[in-house]
């Protein structure tokens, strides 16, 4: 794959508690346009921290992150401008409970991109149609099921037309019967050519959709490769141990 590099991470370190806890210990990788990267690893391995560093929700202790050529770890860079282009989906959805679904989706395009209400709502409705939730446009988040909430959270991020989408264990907080509907939306998104970085425990999804799988343990990338290489021919003992436990 020779597409343009969207995210380039170099020697990324993140320490908590003044260095007592080293969550990330030198992560280096590149994510290219259109690529779907799944990040797997045991809990506490730093994979969520890695993802949250990519849009600077966690401020890296050291290392650089180039997003479309700009070093976003530079404090003089206006991170808010770059975050518009980096969509994020959380484990616990974090829809805005005081707004309707439609308002949830249109507030950022209206306030940040200066779109007028009618245009923003038209685009939002088109996205709702794509995830079969057009009839819930006027509902409040509390009136939705977990699966519906997460699908709304995904399209809310898409409303900003991001260049890359980050998924932080998007199905971990869902009842089992709702996991499928969210994964289907993510698969459709991957097929449409969206660049995606997914921290996930859904090995089936990673195997089916990912172009590349990163296995992170103890804050380091232990192994990376195609799903085939990781799931069937893992080189590292730690990767094999982990996969034996979860598969």
């Amino acid at each position, binding site marked *: 794959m020779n597409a343009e590099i969207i995210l380039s991470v170099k020697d990324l370190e993140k320490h908590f508690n003044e260095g007592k806890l080293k969550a990330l210990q030198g992560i280096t990788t590149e994510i290219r346009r259109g690529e779907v990267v799944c990040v797997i690893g045991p809990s506490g391995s730093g994979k969520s921290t890695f993802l949250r560093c990519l*849009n600077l*929700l966690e401020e890296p202790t050291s290392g650089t992150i180039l997003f479309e050529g700009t070093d976003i770890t530079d*404090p*003089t860079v206006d991170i*808010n*401008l770059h*975050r*518009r282009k*980096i*969509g*994020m989906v*959380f484990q*616990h959805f*974090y*829809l*805005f*409970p*005081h*707004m309707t679904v439609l308002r949830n989706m249109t*507030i*950022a395009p209206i*306030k*940040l991109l200066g779109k007028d209400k009618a245009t923003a709502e038209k685009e939002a409705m088109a996205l709702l149609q794509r995830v079969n939730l057009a009839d819930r446009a006027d509902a*409040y988040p*509390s*009136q939705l099921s977990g699966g519906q909430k997460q699908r709304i959270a995904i399209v*809310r*991020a898409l409303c*900003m037309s991001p260049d890359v989408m980050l998924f932080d264990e998007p199905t971990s907080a869902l009842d089992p019967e709702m996991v499928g509907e969210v994964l289907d939306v993510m698969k459709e998104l991957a097929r449409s050519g969206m660049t995606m970085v997914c921290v996930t425990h859904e090995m089936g999804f990673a195997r089916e959709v990912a172009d590349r799988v990163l296995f992170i343990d103890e804050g380091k990338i232990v192994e990376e490769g195609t799903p085939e290489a990781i799931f069937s021919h893992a080189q590292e003992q730690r990767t094999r141990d982990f996969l034996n436990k979860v598969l």
Partner: protein
Amino acid sequence: MTVFEEWWLPIKAMVENKEPLTIFQSFYKEIYMNVLQDDRWRMYLDGLWITLKVSFFAILVGTILGTILAVLRLPEVTELRYKGKNPLRRAGDVVLRFLCWFAKFYIDLMRGTPLLLQVLIIYYGVFGQVRVDKLIVGVIACGLNSSAYVAEIVRGGIMSVDRGQTEAGRSLGFSGPATMLWIILPQAAKSALPSLCNEFIALIKETSILSYIALTELTKAGDYIRSRTYSAFTPYIISGILYLLMTLILTKLIGRLERRLRNSER
């Protein structure tokens, strides 16, 4: 001669002759002297109007200033450090840090000293040499005092909002202040509303302290009538009923607002 005066004359004669009054006659005497005579009811209404004005604007000042103080006390703001080299933003950082320190100092000061003292200092001290409407003094004193309490209530409301809400806002590209304004504060307001209602009621009642600087608000109006009629109970009870009416109506209105905000939870 009005019908009220016609009813009054025989009772007045009885009082002058020191004849015993029936309970209804005594009641009418109190009402006539303290409400009807010389249009004294107007004084209650004027006092009520002043109390309403002072309370309304003091609540407005208190809420806006209190919200700003609350935000200045959040760890996200007090621990904010600008790391770049732009000298203008470095200076802004210093100013912000001073404001955070001042917010804490201000809240301690305003909550820790009596409102009456604050009113006297503002009236005789700050505005001692300037002619300024006592109503404005009242709004400033009560508003500044209330803002300290509102600040702590709103801060509690803000902290009750899930951190993930901030992260969701920031991840969409909202700046810190914009996230606060559009996403956090509306949710904080909802959970702070019952305590805010409490504070507003307290504020309405505390404006009675302004009678100390001879602002003829509701308490002073009752007091003034007492000084004319020598009735110890009636004028104060009438003022009290009017305070009660105000606070009951406010409670009702805020209750309705609460229900409307709760609708989004169902």
